[in-house]
């Protein structure tokens, strides 16, 4: 893909967010898709590419009445949508299709029409992790963290600061699930989930969805919304088992994906006005700042504590409140992308003045996968 040759022309979240007991999973996909089509001034007949995770692109295309010449069912967890954007940009550039709809919908809290949890006991994870009591992400995604804290000299308090500052951002977002201010003490006194992780260091569990529509920059000129151009993209995967990460203090997938996106975009870190790092748990922004190269190893915690990522800071981070305070339906990457688009359209609730370049960096599984999308509003 040539930088800026493809643009986001439609972007929307589901009409409701938080607890939506009266809409099923596929209904959330459809609600977000219809909102994004309305945003772009398009209908199903104008769309010839589909991508989604959680349900199959066959289900999506049929349900929405789309006849695609391009279908992407990439499912690598919460950053799947970053990969969908990347693949869609390449597909549009190469003439596989003209206009791609990417959807996410998840009934994470209410579980209406949701698939059951569970992994085969014969899978590698089923054999070599499940027998030791891992349950959901709070007991898996967190396993490398004590080693990370030790190697970096970080503390539980450093994890708490991530949650505190993101809550400050959430307070500016009316749609955020959690808006009341919290202190470091509040975080460190919240119920213990899995030492060293307490409740307020873990993401929310909510219902919702989002959708994006991408087309060529040429077509975007005639569309109703201010185009947001794809500037650079990256993706990688490392391991389905968190215990088998090459190094507990850094994500290989983050490093590979981030470097690829920066190289393609041809920008340096100081060019970046706004950043989203998928925060399923409070340690992820720390890993992300280091692995994307915004901070030296060992300096990310101080960078956050010194309010560089807070309101008025030089690198506004997770300005919707993040998975910790805005919403987290299970695969949060879509909401990080939505916030990047809003910031570059100039329509965010916590708008960063004059933002020109934004990065949405996602994680999938438990450090299993990663996707990085760099966007700009300048042609």
């Amino acid at each position, binding site marked *: 893909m040539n930088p800026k040759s493809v643009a986001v022309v439609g972007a929307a979240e589901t009409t409701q967010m938080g607890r939506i007991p009266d809409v099923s999973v596929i209904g959330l996909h459809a609600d977000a898709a219809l909102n994004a089509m309305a945003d772009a001034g398009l209908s199903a007949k104008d769309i010839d590419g589909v991508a989604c995770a959680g349900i199959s692109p066959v289900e999506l295309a049929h349900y929405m009445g789309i006849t695609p010449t391009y279908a992407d069912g990439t499912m690598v967890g919460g950053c799947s949508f970053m990969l969908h954007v990347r693949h869609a940009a390449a597909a549009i550039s190469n003439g596989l299709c003209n206009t791609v709809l990417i959807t996410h919908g998840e009934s994470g809290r209410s579980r209406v029409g949701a698939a059951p949890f569970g992994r*085969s*006991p*014969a899978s*590698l994870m*089923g*054999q*070599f*992790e*499940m*027998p*030791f*009591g*891992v*349950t959901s992400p*709070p*007991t898996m995604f*967190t*396993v*490398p*963290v*004590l*080693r*990370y804290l*030790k190697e970096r000299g970080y503390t539980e308090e450093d994890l708490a600061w991530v949650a505190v500052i993101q809550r400050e951002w959430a307070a500016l977002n009316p749609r955020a699930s959690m808006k009341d201010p919290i202190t470091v003490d509040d975080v460190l006194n919240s*119920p*213990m*989930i*899995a*030492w*060293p*992780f307490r409740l307020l260091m873990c993401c929310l569990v909510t219902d919702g969805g989002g959708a994006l529509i991408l087309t060529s920059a040429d077509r975007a000129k005639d569309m109703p919304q201010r185009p947001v151009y794809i500037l650079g993209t990256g993706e990688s995967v490392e391991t389905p*088992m968190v*215990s*088998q*990460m090459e190094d*507990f203090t850094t994500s290989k997938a983050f490093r590979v994906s981030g470097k690829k996106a920066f190289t393609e975009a041809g920008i340096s870190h100081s060019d970046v006005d706004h950043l989203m790092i998928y925060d399923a748990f409070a340690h992820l922004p720390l890993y992300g700042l280091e692995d994307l190269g915004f901070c030296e190893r060992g300096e990310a915690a101080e960078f956050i504590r010194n309010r560089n990522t807070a309101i008025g800071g030089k690198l506004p981070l997770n300005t919707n409140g993040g998975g910790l305070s805005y919403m987290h339906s299970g695969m949060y990457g879509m909401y990080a992308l939505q916030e990047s688009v809003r910031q570059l359209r100039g329509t965010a609730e916590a708008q960063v003045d004059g933002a020109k370049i934004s990065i949405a960096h996602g994680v999938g599984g438990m450090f299993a996968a990663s996707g990085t999308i760099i966007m700009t509003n300048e042609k």
Partner: protein
Amino acid sequence: MPSRILPQPTPETQHFWDGCREGVLKLQRCGCCAHVYFPPRPFCPDCSSRDVEVFDASGKALLWSYVINHRPRPDMGSEPHSIAVVKLAEGPQMMTNIVECPQEPEFLVLDMPVEVVFAEQEGGISLPFFKPAEG
């Protein structure tokens, strides 16, 4: 308490679980590049050679990282317990539980030496746990 969630061996991993039942921790080593790896597979993930052998590991390791789960799975009882990763003396990392040790941060110190102990379960499965090393 429901019975513990147990692994279902496959042809590629059977030797590992047979080893656990016999009280030996089995790893694999590449005949081409000498890379030692886990989990089991019939080729080397470093150089792609199929020339690999199974060998008896020392069972010695360091406590590499862990959490203490305060909301145990129903089959894991009701008390907080460790979910740990140990770094084996031979190199690979392995998920396990630290046993014969209070399940509290003061007693679960990173880099402390641990050694394997096998715990018999139902259906011919033994799980490899680790306990603080003696001496």
